[in-house]
């Protein structure tokens, strides 16, 4: 337990010292939030409704998709995991600690966004703070699971970045952060259901009462199963050694991580 706590404390401290991670955890989402708060509220009436969950979700995605996958690949390919392994650091700690450490940064940023969004930019405040926080944590867990799974499955840094962008960009465009899900044409709506962001926004709306209230049960089930599946797959596919010279076919199993979203898209829920 002492080792776990020490590892977690190191992970949190190291993020504060790392300009790249600080940028992606704090500065990038806050600057984007500031710009959107100042500009989007003037041109898009929907944005006030979805500003708080949307910008919190943006912070979640920045931390989970734009930092974690390549950090995992980098550490594995440079032999950091080997050093950990020979000194008895469990693989579960290697995967869980960055997720928990990053969560602390995301919570800090999400708190700033939530308070400033409502008070400074007139964003619609959640009716249930607890529900909103729960939706935020579930969204983080879902995206963190996907980020970790990408980091474990990708054989090189560039692949991790590419795959992460394939989730990040559509999530931004179709996930309900900028444009409400209800106005998407049917074809795009099906695609939107493949994205965690769509379900996260529904859960924010359902649990926090922000951005319109809808029953979030199907999305809760999708996100919950996604969390379990992606972390489970990441543990199962985790490798200690560099894989750049020996692509492993078993990593294609990582695509099973999209199963809950594929089912949601197929049944249209």
């Amino acid at each position, binding site marked *: 337990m002492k*080792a776990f706590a020490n*590892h977690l404390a190191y992970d949190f401290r190291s993020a504060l010292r790392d300009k790249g991670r600080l940028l992606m955890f704090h500065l990038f989402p806050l600057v984007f939030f500031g710009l959107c708060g100042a500009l989007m509220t003037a041109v898009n009436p929907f944005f006030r409704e979805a500003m708080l969950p949307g910008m919190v979700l943006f912070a979640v995605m920045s931390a989970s998709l734009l930092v974690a996958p390549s950090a995992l690949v980098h550490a594995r390919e440079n032999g950091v995991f*080997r050093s950990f392994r*020979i000194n008895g650091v469990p693989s579960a700690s290697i995967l869980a600690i960055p997720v928990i450490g990053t969560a602390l940064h995301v919570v800090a940023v999400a708190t700033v966004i939530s308070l400033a969004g409502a008070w400074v930019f007139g964003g619609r405040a959640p009716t249930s703070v607890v529900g909103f926080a729960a939706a935020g944590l579930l969204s983080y867990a879902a995206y963190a699971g996907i980020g970790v799974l990408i980091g474990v499955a990708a054989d090189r840094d560039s692949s991790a970045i590419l795959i992460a962008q394939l989730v990040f960009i559509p999530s931004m465009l179709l996930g309900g952060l900028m444009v409400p899900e209800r106005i998407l044409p049917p074809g795009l709506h099906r695609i939107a259901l493949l994205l965690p962001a769509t379900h996260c926004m529904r859960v924010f709306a359902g649990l926090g009462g922000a951005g319109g209230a809808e029953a979030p049960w199907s999305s809760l089930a999708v996100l919950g199963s996604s969390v379990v599946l992606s972390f489970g797959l990441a543990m199962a596919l985790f490798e200690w050694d560099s894989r750049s010279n020996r692509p492993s076919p078993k990593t294609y199993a990582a695509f099973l991580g999209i199963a809950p979203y594929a089912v949601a898209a197929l049944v249209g829920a």
Partner: protein
Amino acid sequence: MSVRSLRKVYGETVAVRDVSFEVGRGEVFALLGPNGSGKTSTLESLEGLRRPDGGSLSIDGIDPVHQSRKLRNLIGVQLQASALPPAMTVDESMRFFCTYHGVPIRDDLIERLGLSEKRRTAYGQLSAGQQRRLALAVAVAHEPAVVFLDEPTAGLDVQSRLALHGLVGELKARGATVVLATHDMAEAEKLADRAAILLRGRIAAVGSPRQLTAAGSRKTRISVGTENGRLAACRPEFPGAAFEAVRDGYATYLSSSVAATVAAVLTWIEQEADALVDLRVERPSLEERFLEITTDPGVEGSAR
């Protein structure tokens, strides 16, 4: 530590084939061999980092393949290819790994390995030599019974090399077993009680450095300098020795019978009314023996 018929294959390449050896408690054992000879694969199999494709391994009764968790506090490893997180400072590294091993933080090792002034420096900003020293400090911090060192002095300066040699001596003195893979023959000769020379995945020779060099075909070189240079000028023949060359005024002979040759040389100098200035006896080095084995096309890694 026991290795029996170890085999390790990567795709089509057989990296280690039928390697067997034993290492006693408190022994320093060196694995020598050219690049690609199977040293690292053998070490990493013993460390539980690679799953062998054949054979059996045992360290203090523990099977590294199936009981790798039990192995972690028993062994300390300095890997050839590994790294610490680039942002982790020297102090943080020591704290990090000591807490995972459940032992007190070993500040003394940081000092001992000359890293005191770098305590707050991140791993990524250390020089290659400092990184290796830190890896070594971390590897032995929990006082493991068995220490694996893979090319431990690669990239180290002379002082660091001596500090490492001193540390290996201390490990041995407290009863630790040390297995060392190195390209540095002088280091192996200095530190190892026994060494195995690996060639193309097989053990080509094993024994103490003295036994290994004695088994070679190379003769002992005797270099003699005299006051009047008579020996170098006359180049007489001596029993059991062959004249080799004159170098810097020294006459050099290759001898298979050192005592007889030296006695005969001294007698000859006295008879010639010359005076001995310097006499040097150079046994064949482990490096020469290593080169002899590794460049012999007839050697296919059979035990010799």
